[in-house]
């Protein structure tokens, strides 16, 4: 698995927009990072051994002020054993509203490089509504793909929600298509989950890149 740092920079290289983030080692740095970001923050413990962060209680959301941030940071650091490999604490601004989707890419044993898109957050496992798109494809094909996806009504704005700006989503799909085509020898799969699409654009909140098994 690529480190968070490597994964984030690879995704940024291919035009996948990430929520602002800072990776720090301890509680003091987490407080400083939270102050620099401003407003409520999310705190996550990044460890290659724990990929299901929510399930493991390694995510704290909506933290406001130095006291809350410090307390959460210390708790997260204590939540995994001392000998557990950890990359650091991820500090991000809270992103509210919008539609959570799942973006991914993989090298399929039969069809080769593919981009994946479907319901995001914890629902990716429950709904199984993930569709795939085979690169190379341009913005037009990506837009047509989004148009034909079961998520389309959610993105169009339901129950008073404003229609999402799918431009950023389409760009991210195109970027992932290029990424998995060009890097299929050193990337086995990419998970961007959740990727939040709102009327103000789109941001990746969590990511993970697997390398091929040698």
């Amino acid at each position, binding site marked *: 698995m690529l480190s968070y740092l490597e994964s984030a920079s690879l995704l940024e290289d291919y035009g996948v927009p990430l929520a602002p983030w800072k990776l720090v080692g301890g509680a003091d740095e987490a407080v400083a990072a939270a102050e620099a970001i401003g407003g409520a923050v999310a705190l996550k413990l990044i460890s290659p051994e724990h990929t299901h962060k929510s399930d493991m209680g390694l995510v704290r959301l909506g933290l406001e002020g130095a006291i809350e941030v410090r307390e959460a940071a210390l708790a997260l650091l204590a939540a995994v054993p001392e000998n557990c490999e950890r990359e650091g604490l991820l500090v991000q601004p809270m992103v509210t509203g919008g539609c959570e989707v799942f973006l*991914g*890419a993989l090298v399929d044993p039969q069809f*080769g490089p593919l981009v994946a898109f479907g319901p995001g957050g914890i629902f*990716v*496992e429950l709904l*199984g509504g993930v569709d795939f798109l085979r690169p190379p494809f*341009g913005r037009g094909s990506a837009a*047509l793909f989004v148009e*034909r996806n079961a998520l389309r009504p959610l993105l169009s704005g339901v129950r008073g929600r404003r229609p999402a700006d799918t431009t950023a989503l389409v760009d991210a799909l195109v970027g992932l298509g290029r990424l998995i085509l060009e890097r299929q020898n050193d990337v086995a799969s990419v998970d961007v989950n959740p990727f939040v699409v709102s009327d103000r654009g789109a941001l990746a909140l969590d990511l993970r890149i697997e390398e091929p098994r040698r």
Partner: protein
Amino acid sequence: MTDHGAALDGLFSPRVTVHIGASESGVYPAQIFQGLMISDTELYAVNPNRESVFGLPCYASVAKLPRRADLAIITVPRQFVAGALSECIAAGVRAAVVISSGFAEAGAEGATLQHKIEELSRDILVLGPNCAGFANIADNIIATRLAAPSKRGGLSFVSQSGALMMALHGSFSERGIGLRQLVSVGNQAGLRAEDILAHFVQDPETRVISAFLEGLRDGGRFARALQESLVAGKPVVLVKSGRTDVGQRLASTHTAAVAGEERVFESVCRQYGAVLVDDVDEMLSTSLLFERLGSLPMERIAYITQSGGLGSLTGDIAKLAGLEPRAFSPKLEARLRRDKTVPDYQPILNPIDLRGDSMRGAGIAATTAPFFESEEVDLVVLLFAKSPNRSVEKETAEAVISLRDRFGKPVIVVWVGQFEPAEGVPATRLMQRGGIPVFESSGAALRALSRVAAWRAYRAAYLDAEGGSNALLP
């Protein structure tokens, strides 16, 4: 897999063919030879144990033939297949169809024998083993067992099942689908279904492609063939077995695990516009309409019924299928009033009820002519609910066929109440023989029609999205 291109033309259109293992006994050795005897190819028989077969002299081996064959059909027992292929290679034969069975489908020993064929397939094109051969209807090369006469046309079909290929040939023919090539790939030691699909895409006379698939080895080649077919404007109608056999459980958020094999297959079909249907009846219906409609317009449909009940039911089904009937224009309505096509008191709707009297016998030509003549009607759907076996319905069938021929406008017939009479031929069969698509229910007809409409719409959107050029093809 390399692109076989022209080499496959040699396989399916041989000038000289040799049947190795030709015999007067055994279903395949005898019936395939008889098919080849009436095919448009120069035929030789090889069988060291016989003097002659069905009156043709037998040669002891391929090496002894007076001419080099383009194609070998092999029906010898499995242990002799590799030897026969080696002889073919030595004699310069470029393609072979191995009908013989008992290979990978039959245990370890068979798998070893098949491996040998796989090695030899580097030096000769191999279709099979354990396949039912092929039929090149267009060029009259019948290297399989066909039970019915064929109608020539634009549909090519590839099947991983030999039995289904032969059986569906009968169904295709009965439904009036014009055929070009039918190929069964068997155990795919050499050529694979993907290669045959790619060949159909390249074949200029193939206008519609159908396939029965079980599994793929080269998904990339399959996907490229679908994409090229979409760009070329040739619909691909697929049935695939094994679709519920999900290889991976959705056990983690990891993408590779989320990618159930089936979901990926469906996505690839969707992306490149292939029409994936659940069963062979839908494949037949959808292929039939693609083949018969070609690129004729179909947006504006006139539904004409002889039964009010069938008419209203069809209206519902059409709306649900996304083919909502449009109202006729005042101009057409005035014409219908003038011609007294409907009584004064009857409103003119679509579906329009013309009742039994005017929808029977030669008279149907005059009553439906306004719709065939009208520029606002692209496609006529005729709806009947009655027995097709009365002698007057023979005239109905003839009138419908001549209307289609006279106006060049496509016609689809829904005939509820079809059954074969004790003697004679029902009107529905006559229409099918005349190339009119006939369905036993409106649902079957309109589901197939909506698939044609959806494919056309998706193709237009896809070409638009991709800039309408071939430049995007990898």
